[in-house]
């Protein structure tokens, strides 16, 4: 049973199987109807008509039923799919409805028009002129026969009257019969008495008269006439009963050609009448036949429309299904190529896109893997923060720096990060409005760390998609730098102290030596030695003051400062410091103000002016130019001195470094510190044509 059910389920949906079942059912129904009709012994023509009409009815109604079922099934399915929002259902519904309108409208119109034409054509076939012609044909045949009968009847009456006049003599009657037979041109002239032939005269050309059966005795009881078919012609016989009981019989055989034409005319009239009786059946047959054909066309067109709508939308549905799977996070797969047409081209383009995406996805995975490996291996901490700055996740180095191992495995809220001793870092992250660089101190897990950080927005800086934070641990570096700085300071202080100590010691030893000898020279040596000692101690005092000055520089106090006025006033003081030495200011700032500490900036510029004045030869000129670029101010102090003697310019900014052999060597160091506290830079560049250019840049904001 299950096997049959499985077989049925397998064949149920096959179109060929359904068509075969339909044909078998139709054949069975037709055969059954034919047997039924034969059992009832219907006339063949009636059987044909009824069977044909029945089969056409059966065919048409089956087609209508199948068509309605197919339409209702597909339209219901489409409506449900549209109700559930299945992709492609709207397109398919429009396509199917368009097909139906395009098919049903013209087909129904053509069918109605054709049915009307057929009906009117059938009516015209049986129109009044044709009816009249058929009737006249029949009337003509009837008239010819009636005319022949009347002629025979008159001849019989004439012969009977003449025989009655000549009396009952046999010879006289025979002579009269022969005379009248020849005179009237009868084909048959006879005299009967008591049911037997007395005499009978026949035209030898009318052989049909010989084969005629004798008239019945009862028919001869009264006068009359009869027409009979005989040998392909029509024979008319009339008889007249005489007073003595004798019967005169006169016959005439119509010409065979005339009778044949008459027969054809009558047969055509009969056939016409028979067709007229079947007119409605013929019309029904034609209309049903044409209707069946129209239904077949509609069925084929609807089936084709439904098939095409499915065929058109199937690849699109596959595309959508693939993209929906990709949207759900599943793998994007290629779609089978439906055909070599525009839809196929679309699918091929989609498949090419899928292949490219897969390649890019593989490359991206590889890049991500490589980046992940790098991030896990580097000592720089990297944090990624979402756009809303609510959570953050980092690499193992960042987790170690911030003392939160879980940071490397899952996103953490910023509040959680702040509570673990990274409050200043979190504050910096939250306040960053764009790219930020700076340093911050955190106390993660009880350990203080100095971190250098760089915050960069992901994507557009105006609307970042997220943030990336790079953390560098500067604790060890700062400690080493601090130790190196102290060592350098100690070395330089020792060097600076060592220089005056030697002459002091030599002066003291000379005084002591002269004191042991005694003599007059002591009084001269002691004042000289004390003066030398005092001079070198004074130098040491100046060195210590300079050191104190460098160490005690206060923090800058920024306020709006008119830089042009400040430089001009200072240059005015230095102008003429030495004979023929001029300070010239080229001010391109106008009334531009900058945020600066005017006292400290004046001190830094004075140091630069001192150096320029010392380096410049007599008659020289120091040019101070003020210029502005997009976001910074540039102050250039140019002299025509000996220039930089090939040493590293950066060494000139180190404290207690001097190439002049005098002074404390702290001036340029103070300049660099003040400019750095303003967020600017200072550089020493060789000037074209000889000399040095000291270039100071200060940020506008």
């Amino acid at each position, binding site marked *: 049973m299950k096997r049959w059910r499985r077989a049925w389920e397998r064949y149920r949906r096959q179109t060929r199987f359904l068509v075969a079942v339909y044909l078998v059912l139709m054949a069975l129904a037709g055969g059954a109807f034919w047997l039924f009709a034969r059992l009832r012994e219907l006339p063949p023509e009636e059987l044909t008509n009824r069977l044909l009409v029945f089969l056409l009815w059966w065919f048409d109604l089956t087609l209508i039923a199948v068509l309605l079922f197919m339409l209702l099934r597909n339209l219901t399915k489409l409506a449900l799919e549209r109700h559930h929002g299945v992709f492609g259902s709207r397109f398919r519904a429009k396509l199917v409805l368009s097909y139906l309108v395009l098919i049903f409208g013209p087909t129904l119109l053509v069918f109605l028009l054709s049915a009307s034409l057929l009906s009117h054509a059938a009516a015209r076939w049986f129109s009044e002129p044709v009816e009249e012609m058929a009737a006249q044909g*029949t009337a003509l045949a009837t008239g010819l026969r009636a005319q022949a009968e009347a002629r025979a009847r008159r001849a019989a009456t004439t012969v009977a009257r003449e025989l009655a006049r000549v009396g009952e003599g046999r010879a006289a009657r025979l002579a009269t019969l022969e005379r009248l037979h020849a005179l009237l041109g009868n084909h048959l002239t006879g005299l009967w008495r008591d049911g037997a032939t007395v005499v009978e005269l026949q035209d030898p050309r009318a052989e049909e008269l010989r084969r005629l059966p004798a008239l019945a005795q009862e028919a001869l009881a009264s006068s009359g006439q009869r027409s009979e078919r005989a040998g392909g012609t029509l024979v008319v016989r009339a008889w007249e009963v005489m007073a003595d009981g004798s019967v005169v019989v006169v016959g005439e055989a119509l010409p065979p050609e005339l009778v044949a034409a008459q027969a054809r005319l009558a047969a055509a009239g*009969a056939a016409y*009448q028979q067709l007229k*009786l079947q007119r*409605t059946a013929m019309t029904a047959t034609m209309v049903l036949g044409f209707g069946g054909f129209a239904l077949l066309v509609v069925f084929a067109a609807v089936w084709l429309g439904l098939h095409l709508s499915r065929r058109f939308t199937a690849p699109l549905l596959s595309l959508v299904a693939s993209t929906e799977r990709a949207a759900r996070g599943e793998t994007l797969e290629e779609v089978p190529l439906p055909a070599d047409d525009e839809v196929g081209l679309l699918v091929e383009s989609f498949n090419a896109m899928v292949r490219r995406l897969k390649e890019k996805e593989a490359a991206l995975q590889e890049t991500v893997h490589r980046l992940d490996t790098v991030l896990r291996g580097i000592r720089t901490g990297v944090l990624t923060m979402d756009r809303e700055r609510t959570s953050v996740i980092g690499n193992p180095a960042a987790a170690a720096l911030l003392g939160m191992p879980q940071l490397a495995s899952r996103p953490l809220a910023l509040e959680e990060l702040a509570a673990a001793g990274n409050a200043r870092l979190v504050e910096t992250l939250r306040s960053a409005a764009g790219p930020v660089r700076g340093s911050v101190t955190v106390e993660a897990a009880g350990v203080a760390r100095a971190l250098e950080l760089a915050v960069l927005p992901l994507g557009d800086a105006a609307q970042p998609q997220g943030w990336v934070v790079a953390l560098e641990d500067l604790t060890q570096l700062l400690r080493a730098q601090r130790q190196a700085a102290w060592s350098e300071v100690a070395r330089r202080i020792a060097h600076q102290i060592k220089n005056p100590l030697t002459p002091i010691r030599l002066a003291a030893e000379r005084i002591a030596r002269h004191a042991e000898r005694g003599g007059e020279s002591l009084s001269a040596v002691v004042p000289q030695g004390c003066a030398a000692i005092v001079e070198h101690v004074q130098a040491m005092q100046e060195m210590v003051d300079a050191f104190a000055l460098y160490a005690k520089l206060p923090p800058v106090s920024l306020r709006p400062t008119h830089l042009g006025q400040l430089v001009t006033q200072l240059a005015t003081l230095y102008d003429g410091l030495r004979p023929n030495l001029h300070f010239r200011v080229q001010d391109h700032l106008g009334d531009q103000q900058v945020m600066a500490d005017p006292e400290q900036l004046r001190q830094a510029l004075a140091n630069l002016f001192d150096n320029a004045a010392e380096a410049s030869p007599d008659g020289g000129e120091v040019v101070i130019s003020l210029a502005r670029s997009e976001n910074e101010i540039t102050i250039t102090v140019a002299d025509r001195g000996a220039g930089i003697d090939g040493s590293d310019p950066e060494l000139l900014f180190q404290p207690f470094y001097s190439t002049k052999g005098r002074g404390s060597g702290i001036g340029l160091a103070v300049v660099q510190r003040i400019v750095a506290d303003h967020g600017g830079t200072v550089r020493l560049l060789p000037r074209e044509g000889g000399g040095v250019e000291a270039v100071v840049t200060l940020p506008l904001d």
Partner: protein
Amino acid sequence: MMVYALVLAAALPAAKPQDLEVSLTPSPGRLTVQLAVTHQIPEEWSRALVGGAPVSITYRLRLFRNRRWLWDQRLSGHELVVEAQRDPLTGVFTLIARQDGEVLASGHAASVEEAIHWVTHPPPAAIPVPLRHEPLWLVVRAEYLTKYKLLVIPSTVGTQWVTRAVPEAP
């Protein structure tokens, strides 16, 4: 098929009412039925007869047994077909009556009135009836033509079905 049957069923009651006289003469095991159509024959039928086309009237006879609690049981069905055709050459009408395919009677008529009278008053048909004392019904109808309404819906032109109780045989 069902639709076809429904269409036929709807078409049959639409037949025009015709008069049909039925007289029954019972005898043991047989019932003689004398039929006579008293209504005017359709004009197209008469015209076809005069024109020489073969025409016929089919008398359908159906015998039912009345059952008290169930529907009537159909015992037998018979057809009496009376055919008439005029020979246009001789003007003689040939008449044949067949009952269930067997020739019952035949004859000739010289005029159309005689021929129509012959076919509307066919020779009596004898049909077998069961030898049981049960109520029997004979349902009879005369059919002339088959037409088609609205071009394709079949419609039979004939008398209405006439029901007569079968009298008991003496």
